[in-house]
């Protein structure tokens, strides 16, 4: 496969760049927002090329571990890291729920100074990925942009109906 798929997320934050940089690079602040609706525990945060960010996310009885190894740290403009799922001992593993998910995602975050605002662009692409990993990632990216919308819709519909039928009580 020649074309490497890419995940992109861009957003303008209503804060000056130094402040946004701090929110990304001070673990005390980072753990407050990284990970949606979960408890985020940052076990290690060594902000320098080759340094690691060891991250645990907890929700209910579940835990999810990941390891980020910084490749580039250019304050206050750019962060680059290798992003991987790990086991509880920080060994890189295949994603248990999606075996063909790329083991390593090259993650690049750029912070563009817009005065009292900051434009943040985050990209992720598979690193040293197998064809199967690239295909899996491409599939996901395609699904996020378009195409699978109807698939999601039907599934959502089915789940609602199934839950009603199952009569799950809160």
């Amino acid at each position, binding site marked *: 496969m020649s074309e490497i798929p890419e995940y992109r*997320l861009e*957003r303008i*934050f*209503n*804060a000056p760049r130094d*402040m*946004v940089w*701090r*929110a990304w690079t001070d673990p005390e*602040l980072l753990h*407050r*927002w*990284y*990970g*949606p*609706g979960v408890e985020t525990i940052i076990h290690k945060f060594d902000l320098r090329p080759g340094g690691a960010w060891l991250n645990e996310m907890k929700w*209910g*009885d*579940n*835990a*999810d*571990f990941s390891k980020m190894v910084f490749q580039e740290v250019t304050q206050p403009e750019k962060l680059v890291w290798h992003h991987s799922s790990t*086991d*509880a*001992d920080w060994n890189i593993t295949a994603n*248990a*729920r*999606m*075996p063909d998910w790329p083991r390593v995602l090259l993650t690049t975050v750029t912070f563009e100074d817009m005065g009292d605002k900051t434009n*943040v662009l*985050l990209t992720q692409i598979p690193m040293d990925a197998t064809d199967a990993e690239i*295909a*899996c990632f491409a*599939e*996901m990216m395609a*699904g*996020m942009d378009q*195409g*699978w919308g*109807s*698939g*999601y819709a*039907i*599934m959502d*519909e*089915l*789940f609602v*109906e*199934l839950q009603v*039928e199952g009569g799950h009580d809160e």
Partner: protein
Amino acid sequence: MEQPGYTKLQPNLDTIFAALADPTRRAILSRLVEGQASVNEIAAPFKMSQPAVSRHLKVLERAGLIERDVDEQRRPARLKAEQMAAAVDWLNDFKAFWGASFDQLDSVLFNMKRAKGKEADNE
């Protein structure tokens, strides 16, 4: 090491979404929400032969979206919701991850700015 909360199901996204890409197969799934059904019963509302419906059922079965009884003569098909749920959960998790995190970052930055404003007032 087995991590807590992980399901052992390993749904193949490609197969699942290819299966769902077809409107007839989605309609068949909708029908199965009402309960299990035989090929005849599924074919009835469609202008489609039984072999054609059988082919669609095979695709859905391969994707792990339905299962079919092997014992009974009429081999009724029924939904296998867990498989779908696992795949959809995972997709939604990824889709939501950065977006929802960015929402939270928004409010962290808002609080940082407010704290900074207060500091400035106190000076």
